């Protein structure tokens, strides 16, 4: 694993960008762009990252960005990819769509699925803060079972969609599920993805103090707890091979015991109603077990 000292010092996000204090997504994009470097074009649909760029005439990101409509990240990227191919620049320039979970799981799935099926040459990052963060935490397909959102005040009734696995089944060369709590793993994942060709889907669990209702200084701890309790599972699929990653690998191999689920649920205001209902906590846990079972099958075979 790369040492912190060996990470590049260049920053591709500006000081004074508009993210909330303690934003996990900006930790993620900071280290993803360090890996991709300045030969990168970004397309961003409506999401927190649209606002994080700040106010005209300034921009909080240091690389070219095409801001696009909510539903269209995959489609916009397809257009840019075709243009780069036409100019013969598709090898040298990294094209990345950077979208939230709403823009990926819900409104943008069709454009993304089409782009993947066409083996479009780009990286699609879904930074997943598990709700429509930019507009105040309405429920999305990525919102966890039982979690508060402003459109499910008494707790979401469905489990979140196993979206990364759905993307993996598109037969694309690379899929990964990682976390902003492990920036060095983020850096290494993008360094690997940068060298591959075709559609590469990377989903990053990005902690969100405003939305998950915890105190800003607990952001990294919250991301680690998600992995340590097994709620968020880190894995990658390269070609046909599935592998667990980092902490999740240690858990899968029994080297480390999963922390109790309550360690993760208790400190977050969004789970306040859930934890008062043992039956629903059990259903939450069943969802986690199901995901581990399926991923273990993928990794073993």
């Amino acid at each position: 694993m790369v040492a912190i000292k060996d990470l590049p010092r260049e920053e591709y996000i500006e000081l004074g960008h508009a993210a909330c204090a303690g934003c996990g997504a900006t930790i993620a994009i900071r280290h993803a762009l360090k890996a991709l470097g300045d030969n990168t074009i970004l397309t961003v649909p409506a999401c927190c990252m649209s606002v994080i760029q700040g106010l005209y005439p300034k921009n909080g990101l240091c690389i070219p960005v095409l801001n696009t409509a909510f539903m269209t990240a995959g489609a916009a990227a397809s257009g840019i990819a075709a243009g780069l191919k036409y100019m013969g620049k598709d090898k040298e320039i990294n094209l990345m769509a950077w979208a939230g979970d709403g823009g990926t799981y819900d409104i943008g799935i069709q454009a993304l699925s089409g782009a993947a099926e066409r083996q479009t040459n780009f990286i699609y990052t879904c930074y997943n803060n598990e709700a429509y963060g930019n507009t105040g935490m309405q429920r999305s397909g990525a919102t966890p079972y039982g979690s508060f959102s402003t459109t499910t005040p008494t707790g979401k009734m469905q489990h979140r969609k196993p979206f990364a696995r759905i993307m993996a089944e598109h037969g694309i060369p690379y899929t990964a599920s990682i976390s902003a709590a492990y920036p060095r793993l983020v850096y290494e994942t993008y360094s690997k993805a940068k060298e591959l060709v075709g559609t590469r889907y990377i989903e990053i669990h990005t902690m969100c103090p405003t939305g998950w209702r915890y105190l800003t200084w607990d952001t990294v701890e919250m991301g680690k707890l998600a992995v340590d309790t097994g709620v968020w599972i880190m894995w990658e699929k390269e070609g046909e091979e599935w592998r667990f990653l980092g902490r999740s690998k240690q858990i899968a191999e029994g080297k480390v015991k999963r922390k109790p689920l309550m360690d993760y649920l208790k400190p977050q205001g969004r789970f306040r109603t859930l934890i008062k209902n043992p039956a629903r906590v059990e259903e939450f846990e069943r969802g986690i077990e199901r995901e581990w079972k399926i991923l273990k099958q993928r990794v073993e075979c």
Partner: protein
Amino acid sequence: MTPLKRDSPDRRVTCITYPEPGAMGRTGDWRIFRPIVDNDKCTGCQTCWLFCPDAAITMDKNNKPVINLEYCKGCMICETTCPVKAITRVRETEADIE
């Protein structure tokens, strides 16, 4: 085609923006708490640099963290992730207004 200058009129045909610090103004004003670094305790592991969401921490020539107070939002992630508790907090109002 020669690249257009940033503020030439042709560039104002639509909403073109350029990377610059302070796209959301002086975000240092948002702080409720301010991080204070104790250089003696600091071991130079750079964990604070790694996790800062605002890239507001740089390492000086002695490999000690320097926090840009014009833009640091006071999220205090550096405080909680520092393995040797070299960073502590003080309420912004009590800190000396630099």
